[in-house]
């Protein structure tokens, strides 16, 4: 081992290159995300779940023969079959979103991250964007594959012929992919506040999976419009409303609601989810900027 010296000298650190820019930080976070096995695993599981569950459900679906479903209702049913795995994909995305930040705290990597980007906020923004965009792309691709796989399966099992030229169907799938991405981003915010890996994942799963159970019990007991309305504004419920295929009147398989309760349209639901993402992210930034690392 010889003690060679650095070969370049930056005249005592003065201006070699532009330094930290947001584009550079995004590039760094992209390298970080794709260089971890946990990312590949989470994305692989999302694809398998979305395509697998959709295919399975499409091939065993039956009992619609006697129903006089309109073309629109058939499209709605098709969307529900294609997106049957989305709730589970959201769960995996919740774990991924939390892992991306708690993994850095758990290993000490966060100190390297914040040494390179001492203002901290750009690193957090880049992280949440990378997580959101990559999750959106992966689950979107999985849904496209699911649509292509489900269409012939659904045709042979139920006789329903899905119209893949229908933009409404594709908007629903875009909404479904967005819901998965936004759940990941919400979890990222929770993870950044909690920092501990197990705690962050538990909180995210609690939000996505446990909260609906609690509300279901609550609605069974109370059954007042306000509790249904309140539930509409929680992340898991808003995340299902985002990709509901809009049918004149009511959709066939929408979750139960009561009169006078608010039901969000997909765009409203997207707004609610975005609100959750932003709110939790703001809390996360405030906490991270204030704390020692």
């Amino acid at each position, binding site marked *: 081992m010889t003690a060679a010296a650095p070969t370049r000298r*930056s005249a005592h*650190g003065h201006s070699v290159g532009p330094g930290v820019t947001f584009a550079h930080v995004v590039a760094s976070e992209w390298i970080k995300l794709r260089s971890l096995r946990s990312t590949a695993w989470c994305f692989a599981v999302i694809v398998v779940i979305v395509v697998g569950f959709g295919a399975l459900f499409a091939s065993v679906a039956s009992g619609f023969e006697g129903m006089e479903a309109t073309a629109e209702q058939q499209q709605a049913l098709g969307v529900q079959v294609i997106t049957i795995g989305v709730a589970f994909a959201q769960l995996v995305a919740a774990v991924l979103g939390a892992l991306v930040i708690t993994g850095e705290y758990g290993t000490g990597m966060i100190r*390297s991250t914040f040494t390179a980007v*001492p203002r901290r906020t750009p690193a957090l923004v880049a992280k949440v964007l990378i997580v959101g965009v990559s999750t959106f792309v992966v689950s979107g691709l999985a849904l496209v594959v699911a649509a292509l796989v489900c269409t012939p399966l659904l045709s042979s099992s139920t006789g329903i012929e899905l119209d893949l030229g229908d933009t409404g169907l594709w908007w629903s799938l875009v909404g479904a992919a967005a819901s998965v991405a936004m759940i990941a981003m919400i979890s990222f915010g929770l993870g950044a506040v909690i920092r501990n890996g197990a705690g962050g994942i538990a909180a995210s799963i609690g939000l996505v999976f446990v909260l609906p159970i609690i509300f279901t019990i609550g609605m069974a007991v109370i059954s007042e419009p306000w509790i249904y309305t309140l539930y509409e504004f929680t992340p898991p419920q808003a995340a299902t409303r985002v990709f509901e295929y809009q049918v004149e009147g009511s959709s066939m398989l929408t979750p139960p609601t009561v009169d006078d309760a608010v039901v969000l349209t997909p765009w409203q639901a997207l707004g609610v989810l975005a609100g959750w993402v932003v709110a939790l992210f703001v809390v996360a930034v405030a906490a991270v900027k204030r704390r020692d690392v």
Partner: protein
Amino acid sequence: MIEARHLTKRYGQKVALDDVSFTVRPGIVTGFLGPNGAGKSTTMRMVVGLDRPSSGSVTVNGRPYAEHRAPLREVGVLLDAKAVHRGRSASEHLHAMAATHGIGRSRVAEVIALTGLEPVAKKRVGGFSLGMGQRLGIAAALLGDPATLIFDEPVNGLDPEGVVWVRTLARHLAAEGRTVFLSSHLMSEMAQTADHLIVLGRGRVLADAPVSEVIAQASGDGVRVRSPHLPQLVELVRAEHGVEPVTADDGSLELPGVTAARVGELAASRGIVLHELTPVVRSLEEAYMSLTQDSVEYHAGGAAAATPASPAAAEKAATTPGASR
């Protein structure tokens, strides 16, 4: 150049750093010494903005670290614990760090070669030995070719070859005109590496001076003498300085806290023959021990938690602030 001004850090009731001020200058290696819990790592994390001082401030190359446009090009830092995700390879880690500053792939390859990481660059960091982890940390610190380098316990976990490598690297970086700030608990290592020492004990600066001065300040220089008229000489010195000589095994005598020049003058004034007159330089180890003995955070038995059973320890703990400096 690192300038710390009145850094104080409190964790609840506990004061980790108490009004710490110092300047780390370019062109030399500055050692940062102190017992465990003295606040070395906290101070180093503050320099790069990871920890926030309760009061006081610290600047690097003239401004707070976070206000530099390209901080990695100003300061390279190796923190004590592994600050790397265990699931990533060394080369991926360095690429991710480099990307934040738009530092190219060629520079990443350079620091990998420089730190001898080539054989393991593609391996995941989770399987690294402590020594490999240290090399990776040093590689990351060197990425931006910074004018200031901060290494927290850089030789921790390195084999002897690695220790020599870090020592030579540190000296080389300083010789290039860079600011090099190293912490270590290995006093002997510091004696061979550092030009200047900042000694920290219980969150306070106990000494901030060139290595030779720290040693002198801590123990006082001594003189070893050999003479056929030793008793007379001892009387003279005792009369003037009130010091007690220490007899060495070989028959010579050590007179602490006296300069060779003064002993020579005293001997000459009475016509005393001297066979040997040697200035005794304390080792850094000894100097360090005497500087920090009152400020060790966790004595065996616990001086800080002084019980009525050990009034001496309680008194020692109580007088520590006065003793520092």
